């Protein structure tokens, strides 16, 4: 996957003339965020030996997410994927990708998660302005992201400076 990412940067590389779709890149980013964000220790303890990445709303990834992330490990835990429909299941997620289809219900969703140690990520417009933590955007055909540090802090999540320095914008 990472190799694939490197491949994008230098698309002229004759060995791997690959063009990844926007969502393939986003899937990889989701996995990377899991590595650069710290959850409160007790959260990781209670989650058992799985690390759960949830998608809510209309899934834009299709099979990409399963193809690329199944079998991977995060912080010595097995990565598990969940598509959730009901907001009550949210508390079992460590990362939640909110599909752009949930634009209208975002306020209710975020108020439900409020205070829970769940990293919220979405590619909908103005996601972080509206209380989300990491928002994807396209910039010159590249996937970029912005971070709402205040929202993350409130949820007890620490986003690594390594990630912050790559962000297009950081709100605090």
């Amino acid at each position, binding site marked *: 996957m*990472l*190799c694939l*990412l*490197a491949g994008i*940067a230098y698309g002229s590389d004759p060995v791997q003339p690959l063009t990844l779709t926007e969502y393939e*890149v986003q899937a990889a980013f989701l996995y990377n965020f899991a*590595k*650069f964000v710290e959850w409160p220790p007790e959260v990781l303890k209670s989650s058992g030996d799985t690390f759960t990445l949830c998608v809510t709303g209309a899934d834009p990834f299709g099979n990409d997410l399963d193809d690329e992330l199944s079998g991977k490990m995060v912080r010595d835990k097995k990565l598990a994927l969940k598509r959730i429909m009901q907001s009550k299941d949210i508390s079992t997620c460590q990362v939640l990708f909110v599909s752009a289809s949930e634009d209208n219900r975002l306020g209710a969703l975020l108020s439900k998660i409020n205070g829970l140690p769940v990293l919220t990520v979405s590619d909908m417009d103005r996601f972080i302005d509206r209380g989300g933590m990491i928002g994807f955007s396209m910039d010159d055909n590249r996937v970029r992201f912005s971070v709402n540090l205040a929202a993350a802090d409130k949820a007890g999540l620490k986003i*690594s400076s390594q990630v912050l320095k*790559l962000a297009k914008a950081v709100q605090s």
Partner: protein
Amino acid sequence: MSAFKDYSIRKKLMVMSLGATTGALVLACGAFMVYDAIVYRAGLVSNLSTLGEIISSNAASSVVFNDPASAAKTLASLKARLGIIGADIYTPEGSLFASWEPAGSVPFSSTGIVFTGSETHRFSQDALILLHPMIFDKALIGYVVIRSDLSSLKKRFKRYTGITAGVLIVSFIVAVLISLQVGRKISAPILHLVEVAQAISEKKDYSVRAKGEGPDELGVLIRTFNAMLTEIGRLNSELEQKVVERTAQLTAVNKELEAFSYSVSHDLRAPLRHIGGFTDLLLKNVALQENAVARRYLSMVIDSVRQMGALIDDLLSFSRMGRSELMKGRLDLNDIIQNVIAELTPGTEGRAIEWKIGDLPEIHGDTAMMRVVFVNLLSNALKYSRGRNPAVIEVGSERGPDGKTVFFVRDNGVGFDMKYVDKLFGVFQRLHTVDEFEGTGIGLATVRRIIQRHEGRIWAQAAVDQGATFYFTF
């Protein structure tokens, strides 16, 4: 170095101490420089490795989030580091992901880099190249390659070489001063000893003593040398004393013997004259005129008396030549020789004789004795060349190898066998029988005695039937 053994002791000591000092210093400095170079290189590698680790963790997110610009920014943080001439990040497959080089530097080619999972480094002509694998969350995500120039290493080497050269020069000077000082202490007594030994060998003065009897081996040598001198001096004076005593004894005995033989010879003359005189009278006695046998016996007695008289005369002459005072003066040998020849000529009627007389230089000597010398030598030459026709007798002089004038008397007579040459000048020694050649065997002994009294030397060269040559010097 082959000439080393020909050096003086002082020079040898100097060369030795300087050689040892310089050699030891060069070795020590060399070893130190090599050790320092190794340690310094290891330090460079370790520094670069730390930088690689830092870059690797700082750029990990840039790599996994595929942000080459951010990675390049991280790499650019190295510009504050001295000696770093460039850094790159490569993907695990070896393609360039991000790169930083100081402005104006030559772009770096990754050719020759072997991408492996563990850290490696390589020293090229003027750079150290370090490859550090980037591990993130237990996975290889790329490589950091950092290049450092070796200017600091070279500067350090130059500085060390300078310091080493300085230390070498200073220690060389100090070593020269010390070895001069110490060398003088060692060589001076030896040189002194050599001088004393030479002086003694030249002047034979055994009372001289070497100075400097220190407690070391040189002192022992000098003490032993002095002790040996004392011993030699003692032995020498004892020997001289002995020689003087023996010489005195010998001279006394010799004188006694001479006096004895002189008086015997002298006293023998009177009875002999009586025998001769009365035998003569008897021969003239009328009563015996008819008795041929008696007359023959009587003439044989007279012959023997004459022969004995000649012998006694020769002995007395020999004795006189040893005892009488030398009346030395300048004398012309040419005159003497002409006189002697004139004197000898009456006995040579009927013989063909060729005289070859060279022009001889004047000498300083006793005229009477010199006459005896030539009478003996020339009459010998005449006698032993009796059978030759013509007899050739040569008298001359030549310059010897030592510059002295050598006189010679040469004949073409019967000569003699050189193995008997030792007997030639002895009293009563004859190489021929009286039947072949008459004579008493005293002539050459007399000649040698005269030559020796003139502080000269006489010797002979001959071969059977090839003639004989007598040489002498004064």
